[in-house]
């Protein structure tokens, strides 16, 4: 192993306490349901075990009701509020345009304070009392608490903000379609990206082999609850490549701390959650060059000011607090995926039913307006739903904006 390779392998991971990203580390599986790809490749799911199979295939004609368990209070309420604002804006746009073939979408929110047991209680209320057609939530903990009840009642769980690999297993959780990219897909992308920065092919191959064998070799883990302590720890360990599994609010703070302790590793890559320009502006020079896996357009980029999709987005989210925040954009896109899925389901031969909705969610190749060119939202009977790729963007502290630092890399 060459010295360069060894240096590269000294990648470091900075986990974030209470991070949404960390929750991507799934554990076990489940065995609730039976689902399969049909002979023609389309998705099918058995409704025999549903609490009330007739409801699953019953046509929805009055209102499409979705129960959303959200942390309206508690530690992540601020972040959730941004996402919900984007979500509401897109749903309002769809309803103003006549709904789904004339059927309006009605979202009911209940607070779970990011606590799983409250989320489970909410799920029971939504399913048993409110008789909702669809469910959604924010975070892997609440999703895990609600998953079983949703599966038993066969209520489609549409695009919850979770990246937990556990619920990406279609055969085990056919009724859940997550929104956030899985940690493994992001890691795949980052490995490829780091490879592309290595000039010696032999070293790159070695890195790839190592990465495949055991994932990134982690030499030091530092909790970024105290960003300065994290930066100091990694600096003293001589870490050259840093992966920051940050969430909104912690990304720029860590980079600012690096600057203060004069720590400048060769490469800093961060989770896609960190694609928030405002944080890096605050972080100053320390954030220069931080590279992020990105799949949403930067709606604050002046170069996209006349892009029709961005123009329409700004028009729709005109009243929200922070329209160019990535979380707001994510909320908008989640709702956009929902609208597209419902529209697709309504066009199916069986019309708008819970069954046709989940089938539509498993049959996607959709160019959502906020996705970067070259990236689409994909789902098949065997491929878990998610973006088709990522693009590396690096923060330019001088120009105060993200600049493209590589082509879109497909993750399939």
């Amino acid at each position: 192993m060459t010295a360069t390779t060894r240096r590269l392998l000294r990648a470091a991971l900075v986990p974030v306490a209470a991070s949404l990203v960390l929750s991507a580390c799934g554990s076990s599986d489940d065995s609730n349901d039976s689902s399969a790809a049909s002979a023609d490749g389309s998705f099918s799911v058995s409704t025999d075990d549903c609490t009330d199979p007739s409801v699953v295939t019953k046509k929805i004609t009055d209102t499409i009701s979705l129960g959303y368990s959200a942390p309206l209070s508690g530690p992540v309420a601020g972040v959730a509020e941004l996402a919900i604002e984007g979500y509401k804006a897109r749903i309002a746009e769809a309803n103003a345009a006549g709904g789904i073939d004339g059927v309006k979408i009605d979202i009911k929110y209940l607070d779970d304070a990011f606590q799983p047991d409250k989320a489970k209680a909410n799920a029971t209320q939504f399913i048993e009392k409110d008789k909702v057609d669809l469910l959604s939530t924010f975070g892997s903990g609440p999703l895990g608490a609600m998953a079983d009840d949703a599966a038993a009642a066969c209520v489609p769980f549409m695009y919850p903000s979770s990246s937990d690999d556990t619920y990406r297993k279609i055969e085990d959780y056919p009724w859940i379609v997550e929104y956030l990219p899985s940690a493994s897909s992001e890691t795949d992308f980052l490995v490829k990206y780091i490879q592309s920065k290595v000039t010696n092919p032999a070293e790159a191959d070695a890195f790839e082999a190592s990465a495949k064998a055991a994932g990134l070799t982690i030499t030091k883990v530092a909790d970024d609850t105290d960003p300065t302590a994290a930066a100091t720890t990694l600096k003293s360990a001589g870490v050259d490549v840093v992966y920051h599994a940050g969430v909104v609010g912690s990304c720029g703070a860590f980079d600012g701390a690096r600057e203060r302790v004069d720590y400048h590793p060769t490469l800093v890559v961060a989770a896609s959650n960190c694609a928030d320009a405002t944080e890096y502006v605050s972080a100053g020079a320390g954030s220069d060059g931080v590279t992020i896996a990105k799949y949403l357009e930067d709606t604050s980029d002046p170069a996209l000011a006349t892009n029709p999709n961005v123009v329409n987005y700004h028009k729709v989210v005109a009243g929200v607090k922070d329209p160019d925040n990535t979380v707001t954009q994510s909320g908008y896109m989640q709702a956009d995926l929902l609208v597209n899925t419902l529209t697709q389901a309504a066009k199916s031969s069986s019309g708008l039913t819970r069954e046709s909705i989940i089938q539509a969610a498993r049959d996607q190749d959709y160019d959502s307006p906020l996705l970067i060119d070259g990236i689409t939202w994909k789902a098949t009977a065997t491929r878990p739903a998610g973006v088709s790729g990522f693009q590396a963007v690096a923060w330019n502290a001088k120009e105060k904006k993200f600049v493209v630092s590589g082509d879109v890399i497909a993750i399939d």
Partner: protein
Amino acid sequence: MPIVIEQGTNRYRGLVAVGLAVAVLVVLWASGLDPFQRGQVTRVLIYAVAIAGLNVATGYTGLLSVGHSAFFGIGAYTTGILVEKAGWGAWATLPVAAVCFAVGLLVGLPALRIRGLYLAMVTLAFAVAFPEIVARFDGLTGGAGGMAIHRVNLRPPAWSGFTLGEKDKWLFWVAVVVLAIVTYLIANLTRSRYGLAMSAVRQNEIAASASGVNIAIVKVTSFGISGAITGAGGGLFAIYLGNLYAEGSFTLMAGISLLIGLVIGGERTMLGPIVGGCVLIYVPYYTADIGQGQASAVLFAVALLLVIFLAPSGIVGGLGQLSRRILVVRPGRPALGRGSVPAAPASSGGHSSPNDRGHSALDEPLTGIERQNS
């Protein structure tokens, strides 16, 4: 003048029978609620078990703990791991909350040298460390990503007559039984010689020690018993939730919530944990109807402040004081002292222990020991 009923008399037994009949009727009524409301009641019962455990350490022995969320979590993960990794039936795992007894003994060790806020700091560290420990042993616990407990593995046992689809109904009854057992055990514990020792330690350690109470054993075992009971609540919680996520369910905030439940419900009362569980579940639920999100949290806080202001000894403690204007239940007089030893009215409010009669700290354990020996 209030009506005075003496323990051990027919009138007292009649009063107990009426209380039990009311409890049975309430349980039967709750079992017939719709699934959502029954689920809420189940959560109340689970939290009541956990708070009852905290009541042993903090209420009866005076060992302030904000870290019982960790015992709650250990109980939950013990159930989760035994079900998922060892193939145990979920219900069979509940007695294994004894694991929490051992952990409780260890956590109780610092209590030998420190108390009050300093002890609270130790338990706080325990609570803060727990999610990190869970994350560290991700191979066993699922780490930060959580542990999914398969629904099929939570199937009620065949002898119960409940199907998998009736799991929540079955859990309701299990929670009722566990809470009944826990309440019965704690009631007997606090009336025992050991219970008197707990009370003595709470009120004045020096006096208790001078009276022959082994402070170290009382403190450590109180923590052990307390942890075991709260751990059993954690096991129920795991079965209820089917998914364990330490960062969401077993944080320091959860520990503080248990303490809030105890204080609001009423320390050193048998019904306090149940009322505390109701407060934790229903106050946020109904305040959410008034104002969503942060407004709901503020309303919840205001409601708690009001309760503390109006009933400093907790809801059950406050109601107990009011009820004593009408009805006083006092301990039966020992045969030797009947007719000659004045008996002060005991506190009621759900249940009473001889520890709450207003005697001095030194007087109580001595009196208790004499009674035990007589």
